[in-house]
């Protein structure tokens, strides 16, 4: 079985026989990266949500120097490449802090920090979207700032935040492929290894792209279901 393709370039014509048997034969090996990819994504996302919630709230603080910390965090993390952050956390953080992290943990830390900056902006936008009258109503019945945030503002903000948060989850899932650079055996790393040993990169990377596509589509449709459920509650 095979698929023929004509690759034309530089005046030459190359014949390439696609042979997806290589995927079938190494199925188990390729799939073994899936767990790592999902683990890295889930942990980074969970960390990113916590960091983002804090950063988002900090950025809205009435005390300017506290708000500035959040602002600086977002500024740095959003304006440097994720790959650079990943490598920086892996190589520089241990030297600066003396903290020895294993490879996969530093990847998760880096992606969580990255994700946190974006989630922080989503949280901030969500909170700002809630009518100020809601805050005033809560304060006038004597609720504290924190109580108003937890019971009144965030429940309303979360509905607005849902769609962009799923977007962010999909982004992190795709960014998780970067961890292969540091040798973490995720989907991408397994694919690279296999490609160099079998000399079948086209089939293998096409298959990997398909895997990411399916994962991301599942993630997005999960969001649609959640959104519908929220809409019903209104």
């Amino acid at each position, binding site marked *: 079985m095979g698929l023929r393709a004509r690759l034309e370039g530089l005046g030459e014509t190359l014949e390439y026989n696609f042979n997806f048997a290589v995927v079938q034969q190494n199925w188990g090996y390729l799939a073994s990266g899936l767990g790592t990819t999902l683990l890295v994504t889930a942990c980074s996302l969970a960390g990113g949500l916590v960091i983002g919630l804090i950063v988002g709230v900090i950025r809205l603080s009435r005390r300017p120097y506290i708000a500035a910390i959040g602002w600086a965090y977002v500024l740095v993390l959003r304006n440097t490449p994720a790959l650079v952050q990943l490598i920086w956390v892996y190589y520089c953080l241990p030297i600066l802090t003396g903290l020895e992290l294993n490879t996969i943990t530093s990847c998760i830390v880096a992606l969580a920090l990255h994700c946190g900056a974006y989630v922080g902006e989503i949280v901030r936008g969500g909170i700002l979207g809630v*009518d100020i*009258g*809601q805050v*005033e*109503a*809560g*304060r*006038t*019945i*004597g*609720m*504290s*700032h924190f*109580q108003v945030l937890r*019971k*009144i503002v965030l*429940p*309303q903000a979360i509905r607005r935040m849902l769609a962009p948060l799923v977007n962010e989850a999909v982004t992190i899932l795709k960014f998780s492929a970067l961890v292969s650079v540091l040798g973490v055996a995720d989907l991408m790393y397994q694919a690279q290894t296999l490609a160099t040993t079998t000399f079948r990169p086209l089939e293998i990377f096409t298959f990997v792209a398909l895997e990411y596509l399916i994962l991301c589509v599942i993630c997005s449709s999960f969001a649609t279901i959640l959104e519908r459920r929220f809409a019903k*509650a*209104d």
Partner: protein
Amino acid sequence: MTRQAPMVCVRNLSKSFGTNRVLRSVELSVAAGEVVCMIGASGSGKTTLLRCMNLLTIPDLGEVLIDGEPVGQMDGKGRFRPLTDRDLDRLRARMGMVFQRFNLFPHMTAVENVMLGPMMVRNTPKIAARSLAEEQLTKVGLADKFDSYPSKLSGGQQQRVAIARALAMSPKLMLFDEPTSTLDPELVGEVLETMRQLANDGMTMVIVTHEMDFAREVADRVLFLSDGQIVEEGPPTAIFGAPQQEKTRNFLRRTLRHQLTPPTRLRSLDVANNRQAGKSP
């Protein structure tokens, strides 16, 4: 109790938004059980004065005492410093506030809206809070709407839930910021009726309103504000019957003509009736 402190005492209160001086050295004292209505053109500072009482707006200068307790302190230069959040929350819980746009929590049912304050601020157990909330909602005539979300209620019903929510904290003072001005004409009556009952029960109330008939009937004292100052004050018979100041006379002439001339009033009622007629075949 040797001497009863006024429920609200405002001294020398000033507030500017940018270069706009909204309040100019206002002095005001409201006794316990008194119903005070504030009238005046928009931009005259009535709402700001009301919001300064519970520090939703922070005044620049002056002093506000609620039930004898200051809501803030003056520093050496006489500038206003609000209380710490914690003390302020405690004081605010003694004042109820009703807003022009209701500000109900849309993600909670009517009864949950009313329960929230007692549960969060007073640590009332859920069951007790629920029965308290049901009692308050029944009092404002919403016994059949406990589990409705605000979006399913009319404006008048929403505003009554908002009143019940404020009352659930058993406040000593109720502040109303134009509570009927966003309501359809046919819904104004039910909210005013609820407020009238509250006044009869002896609640201290400060009300910013455009409903002159209501002010005339319910208020113990009417304040007329213009350009950030209390221009004239007195019992409603005096203010509406024989206003002393030129500004008051002008304002009342304009407002009452607007409220009483049949064409506008009737037209809006006609529209309301037609709308209702259109709904039910």
